[in-house]
C-alpha cells in the first residue's frame, strides 16, 4: 500500500528524520492559511499516487499566501495520469545546496533489505544507475542481524557527504531503517534528502510503500489508505477478500489463483487483440473461495458497463468447482446479467460443478472444455456484442 508524500514524511518525522513543517490542504483557502502560517515562499505539491507530478504541473512554487491560493486552486482538481488531485501539501520552500538520494527497499533476489544511497541525488535513481553507477552506494542488511550503526557508517562513508554532516547522515540512515522495519515497509525512500544553504538536512520528498501482507499488524498505517484514488469496485473487492484490479478491456474474468488469472487475461488478449478485445479486469477469487465470494466477484465484474462477456476459469485445487458453481448461480439470480458467460470448470469436483450449472439451464451460459476454447468463445461473444 502506497503512502502519500505527506503521510510518508509525517512517518519519517516520527522516527526523528528532519522534514519540512508543511501541512495538507483540500481547498485553496486552506492552502492560503497554511502558507500564511508558514510565512515566506512555499511549495504546493499535488498528493497523488503517481510519479512525474512535477512534469505534469502538479508541483509549484508560491512566493506569498495569495500566490499559494492561486496555485493550489489550479492544482486541486487537475488530473495527473488519470488520477484527480484532491489534496495538496503546502511545504516551506527550501534553499537547496546539495541533493542526496537515500532509500531502503526489499531486494527480493537477495532476500534482504537493500540500502541505496547517492550523494548525487536530484535525478531519477534509475537514470543515475545507468549514467553513473559508481555514484550509487548499495548495502544489503542481514535480516537475522539487522542494521548496525556501522552499516549506516559504511553507507555514509562510501557516499562521501560533507564531513560536517557525517554524523547527521549516519543517524538518518539508522532512523530510516528503523522506520522501514517498524512500518513493515517494502520501500522507504527520501528523494531528495537535501542539505540547505543554511547547512540543515531536510527530507524534501518521501515515498513509503507498506507490505500489504503486514497491514494486519500496522493498523495506524492501514488507516491511511486513500480510497478516493481507487475504483469503487476495487474497494468492494477488497472488502470481500477478493483480489481485483480494474482494467479497460471487455472480457470480465473470474479465475482462481493469481498465475492462472493473469494467464486467462493473457488468453483473452492473445485471441482478442486483433479485434481490440482484451481483459476487463484481473480477478483472483483465491484458494478455497466460498459461494458468497464467488457471488460477490460476479457482481463486481458485472458492475462494469464495459464488460461484454464474462470468462470464468476455475481449475479446482483447494477451490471446489461445486462451490464455485453454487456461487455463480446465486449471483446470477440476483444480477440477471444480459452478457454471455463462458464457464470452464476443471479439477476438484468439476463434474459436480458442471452438473449444477447444467441443471440450472441458464440462458447465455456457455461451457467450455479447455482454457483455449473458453477464451476463444469469450472473445467471440464480446465481438458479437460490440
Amino acid at each position, binding site marked *: 500500500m502506497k503512502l502519500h508524500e505527506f503521510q510518508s514524511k509525517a512517518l519519517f518525522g516520527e522516527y526523528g528524520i528532519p522534514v519540512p513543517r508543511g501541512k495538507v490542504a483540500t481547498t485553496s483557502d486552506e492552502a492560503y492559511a497554511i502558507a500564511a502560517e508558514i510565512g515566506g515562499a512555499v511549495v504546493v505539491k499535488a498528493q497523488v499516487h503517481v510519479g512525474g507530478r512535477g512534469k505534469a504541473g502538479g508541483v509549484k512554487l508560491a512566493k506569498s499566501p495569495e500566490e499559494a491560493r492561486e496555485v493550489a486552486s489550479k492544482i486541486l482538481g487537475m488530473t495527473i495520469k488519470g488520477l484527480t488531485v484532491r489534496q495538496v501539501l503546502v511545504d516551506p520552500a527550501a534553499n537547496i545546496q546539495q541533493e542526496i538520494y537515500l532509500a531502503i527497499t526489499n531486494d527480493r533476489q537477495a532476500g534482504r533489505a537493500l540500502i541505496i544511497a547517492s550523494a548525487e541525488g536530484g535525478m531519477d535513481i534509475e537514470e543515475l544507475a545507468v549514467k553513473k553507477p559508481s555514484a550509487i552506494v548499495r548495502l544489503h542488511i542481514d535480516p537475522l542481524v539487522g542494521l548496525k550503526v556501522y552499516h549506516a557508517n559504511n553507507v555514509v562513508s562510501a557516499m562521501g557527504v560533507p564531513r560536517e554532516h557525517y554524523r547527521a547522515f549516519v543517524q538518518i540512515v539508522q532512523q530510516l531503517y528503523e522506520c522501514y522495519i517498524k512500518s513493515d515497509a517494502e520501500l522507504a525512500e527520501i528523494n531528495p534528502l537535501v542539505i540547505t544553504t543554511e547547512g540543515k538536512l531536510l527530507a524534501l520528498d518521501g515515498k513509503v510503500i507498506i507490505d500489504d501482507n503486514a497491514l494486519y499488524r500496522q493498523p495506524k498505517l492501514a488507516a491511511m489508505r486513500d480510497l478516493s484514488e481507487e475504483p469503487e469496485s476495487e474497494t468492494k473487492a477488497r472488502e470481500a477478500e477478493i483480489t481485483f484490479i480494474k*482494467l479497460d478491456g471487455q472480457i470480465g474474468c473470474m479465475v482462481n489463483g493469481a*498465475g492462472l488469472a493473469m494467464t486467462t487475461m493473457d488468453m483473452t488478449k492473445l485471441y482478442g487483440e486483433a479485434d481490440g478485445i482484451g481483459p476487463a479486469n484481473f480477478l483472483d477469487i483465491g484458494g478455497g473461495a466460498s459461494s458468497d465470494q464467488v457471488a460477490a466477484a460476479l457482481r463486481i465484474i458485472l458492475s462494469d458497463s464495459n464488460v461484454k462477456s464474462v470468462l470464468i476459469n476455475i481449475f479446482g485445487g483447494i477451490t471446489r468447482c461445486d462451490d464455485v458453481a453454487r456461487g455463480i448461480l446465486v449471483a446470477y439470480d440476483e444480477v440477471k446479467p444480459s452478457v454471455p458467460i463462458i464457464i470452464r470448470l476443471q*479439477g476438484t469436483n468439476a463434474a459436480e460443478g458442471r452438473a449444477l450449472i447444467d441443471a440450472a439451464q441458464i440462458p447465455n451460459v456457455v461451457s467450455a472444455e479447455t*482454457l483455449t476454447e473458453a477464451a476463444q468463445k469469450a472473445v467471440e461473444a464480446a465481438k458479437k456484442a460490440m
Partner: protein
Amino acid sequence: MAILVDKQSPVIVQGITGKQGGFHAKLMMEYGTNVVGGVTPGRGGEWFEGKPVFDTVSKAVEATGATHSLIAVPAAFAAEAIYEAVDGGIKLIVCLTEHIPVSEMMKAVAYVKLKGARLIGPNCPGVMTPGQAKIGIIPGMIGMPGHIGVVSKSGTLTYEVGFALSRRGMGQTTFVGIGGDPVIGTTFIDVLQMFENDPDTSSVVLLGEIGGRAEIDAAEYIKNHMTKPVAAFIAGRSAPPGRRMGHAGAIVEGSEGSAEEKIAALEAAGVRVAANPEQIPDLLAS
C-alpha cells in the same frame, strides 16, 4: 527417481487439526503419501485419521522419523512454523501459507539456509511426484508418472499445464510449485539444477510470471548449465505496470519484471516459450 519427495518420504503436517491442514492431509494420504503424523501445539496425544498428533515438531520427528513437513497454518504463525521445522530436524519444508509479511520471510529464509534445510514456498501449492506422493494441495488428477519435470511460481497454472500434459499422455517426474512471493525458499535455478541432475527427468517445463528477475536468472542458468530441453510460459503479458497481480511478487516495477523481457531472455537461452500454456505439450513433443 523423481526429486524432493517419493513414496517413502515420511511427512508430517504442521497444523493438521486445522481446517485446511486436515483437509489436505487426508487428500495426501489418499494419494499415497507417507503421512506419519501431525503437529498442533496443545493437542499432542490426540489422533488424526489414525495418525498421531504432537505438540511440537521435535517430538513428532523423534517419534516418527519424519524428514518432510507440510506447513498449513495461518500467516501470522507460518514463519514461526518454518523455524520450528528447521530446528526440529526437518529437511524439506513445504509452506502453503499465503500473505506472510516479506520481512518475516527474509528472516525465515535466511535461517533455513543457515541451517542447511530446504524450504519450498511460501504461498505455493507444494510438490507432487505423480504415482508416488504429494506434499501440498496439487490435485492428484492433473499428473501421471513420466519424465517431464515441472517447476512453477503459480498453483492453478501448474494444474492447467499438468492436466494438458497428462491428457496427451506426457507424464511427469515431479511438480514443484515454488510460490509467487517475492522472497521464497527455493528458486527456479535450484529446481532446474535438481531436474538436470535427475536421471529420470528428460525435459523440463518452467512456468513463470511477471515481477522480479527470477526467470532472467533461470534463463542464464539454462543457457550455461542445462542439457535437457526446457519449455516455458510466462504469465502476465496483459498486466498493467505498477499493479500487484494477486501474487505479492507479481508486479512490474519500472522497467523491471515485464513478461516481454523474461520471454526474450528465455528464448535467447534456447527455451521454447509458449504464448498459450495449453500449447506446451506441442512444444515438448515437436
